[in-house]
């Protein structure tokens, strides 16, 4: 039982992180029907900018005196950086192909992914980069169950981000405009909504969330690597498909499920297969219910 609860806690932590990444896939798909293969790279970039900033703060001893401010600053700056990176990528690699076939943009996304990942390798090296170690050590122990402070921080942060996103998308004027753009770009233009601006904003938000997830993963596993975007990227993509691509609530749910399945699969079946479970789910969803849990039908995209 203790083991089960421990796994549950670990699963929620990981699932939340996947949910954050999955949102970027699903939102971008919602507004322009593009699977942004480069999305995982924003996550990786986030992990790196995070480690650079935190190491800088730690090196100055600021981590000891003002840990929360340093952490908050690192999250904000990293998310901002990745948001701008994503808007740049969108302008350069996707905007010019907007009226071309979808395949063109898809190939462009693959190219961007390879480019960004190599840029990260060339500038940061091929070896693991450790996160400053002394952050958030310790935790609460309930018998055999341990909840680390880090897990609490990650889950809280995830909840804050997910709730903020929901408010933004479902309660604000910008969110309305985003959903309108996803539903009908011509009509949006007829009521003065410039779709390019909204699309840019969507990329920025998605990348910002992925960047936050990047720092969380870095903190959680203790280090980052240039190719860290690949596997979590595909898992988060699976989560988005599982939830119904284009559907925001679906992506959150899908992320949580994939995280749980991975942790429980690793815990009860085999740790060596932990990366396989997400793909089994992806294949099963595509086979049995390609529209996902929340999707209505494939053309019925929603943000």
């Amino acid at each position: 039982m203790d083991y089960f609860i421990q796994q549950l806690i670990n699963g929620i932590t990981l699932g939340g992180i996947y949910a954050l990444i999955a949102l970027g896939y699903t939102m971008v798909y919602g507004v322009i029907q593009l699977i942004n293969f480069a999305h995982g790279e924003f996550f990786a970039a986030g992990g790196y900018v995070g480690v650079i900033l935190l190491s800088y703060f730690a090196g100055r001893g600021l981590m000891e005196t003002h840990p929360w401010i340093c952490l908050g600053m690192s999250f904000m700056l990293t998310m901002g950086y990745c948001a701008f990176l994503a808007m740049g990528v969108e302008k350069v690699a996707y905007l010019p192909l907007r009226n071309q076939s979808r395949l063109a943009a898809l190939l462009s996304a693959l190219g961007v992914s390879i480019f960004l990942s190599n840029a990260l390798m060339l500038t940061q090296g091929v070896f693991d980069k450790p996160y400053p170690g002394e952050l958030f050590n310790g935790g609460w122990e309930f018998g055999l169950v341990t909840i680390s402070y880090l897990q609490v921080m990650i889950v809280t942060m995830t909840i804050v981000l997910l709730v903020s996103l929901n408010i933004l998308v479902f309660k604000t004027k910008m969110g309305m405009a985003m959903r309108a753009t996803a539903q009908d770009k011509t009509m949006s233009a007829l009521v003065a909504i410039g779709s390019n601006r909204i699309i840019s904003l969507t990329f920025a938000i998605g990348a910002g969330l992925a960047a936050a997830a990047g720092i969380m993963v870095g903190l959680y596993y203790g280090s980052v690597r240039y190719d860290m975007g690949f596997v979590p990227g595909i898992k988060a993509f699976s989560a988005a498909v599982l939830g119904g691509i284009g559907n925001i609530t679906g992506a959150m749910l899908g992320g949580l499920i994939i995280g749980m399945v991975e942790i429980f699969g690793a815990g009860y079946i085999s740790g060596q297969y932990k990366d396989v479970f997400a793909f089994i789910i992806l294949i099963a969803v595509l086979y049995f219910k390609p529209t996902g849990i929340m999707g209505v039908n494939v053309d019925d995209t929603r943000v």
Partner: protein
Amino acid sequence: MTDPILELKDVHSGYGSIKALKGISLRVYPGEVVAIIGANGAGKSTTLMTICGIVKAERGQVIYKGQVINTLLPEKLPTLGLCQVPEGRRIFPRLTVMENLRLGAFYRKDTDEILKDIQKAYEMFPILGERKNQEGGTLSGGEQQMLAIARALMTKPKVLLLDEPSLGLAPIIVQQIFNIIDRINKEDGTTILLVEQNANLALQAATRGYVVETGQITLEDDSTSLLANPKIRAAYLGE
């Protein structure tokens, strides 16, 4: 007469190799209701979409209030007072009635006025008030047409382009819609350019009309003259 508020000068446009408009010229004066009639595929909707910049004019000019607008981005035009209710109404199906109305005022910053205008819309179309939290896609055709018009009014248009507002609606609803159109024109002084397949209806509502055939204007006259014209009666009034 004064200067036209909207003018098309020899406008050509189309979809890739398909030339839909082959030199359309027309003028709409402030406060007028002008009708465009024509058969299926004549280019009526393309004319409105070209005015709104959704379809790019390949040749010629679209001039609004003395300014050439066919070089502007389409999303700029509603902010200048030019708005279209497109064919098929194009309600945002998964936004609520209220959200659809709110987005009509997307570019406006006057929050208090916007809320008042939404209330006005509910007074003009009480059914929309009753349905305000319902998704647009669940409304009936008539309700959607009302919402589409109300949404367009939220942009505070000076010139309103209407594409087949009677399409697929029961006669009694059509009557309601045309009463509203008349009110918008008379009470707010909004200029209206009306596209209709139902020529009889359109010419009764309008003071002047243009006849479009295969991308060109073939006739232009007062509504009364057009209604009396034997050719028009034969081709568009089903006689």
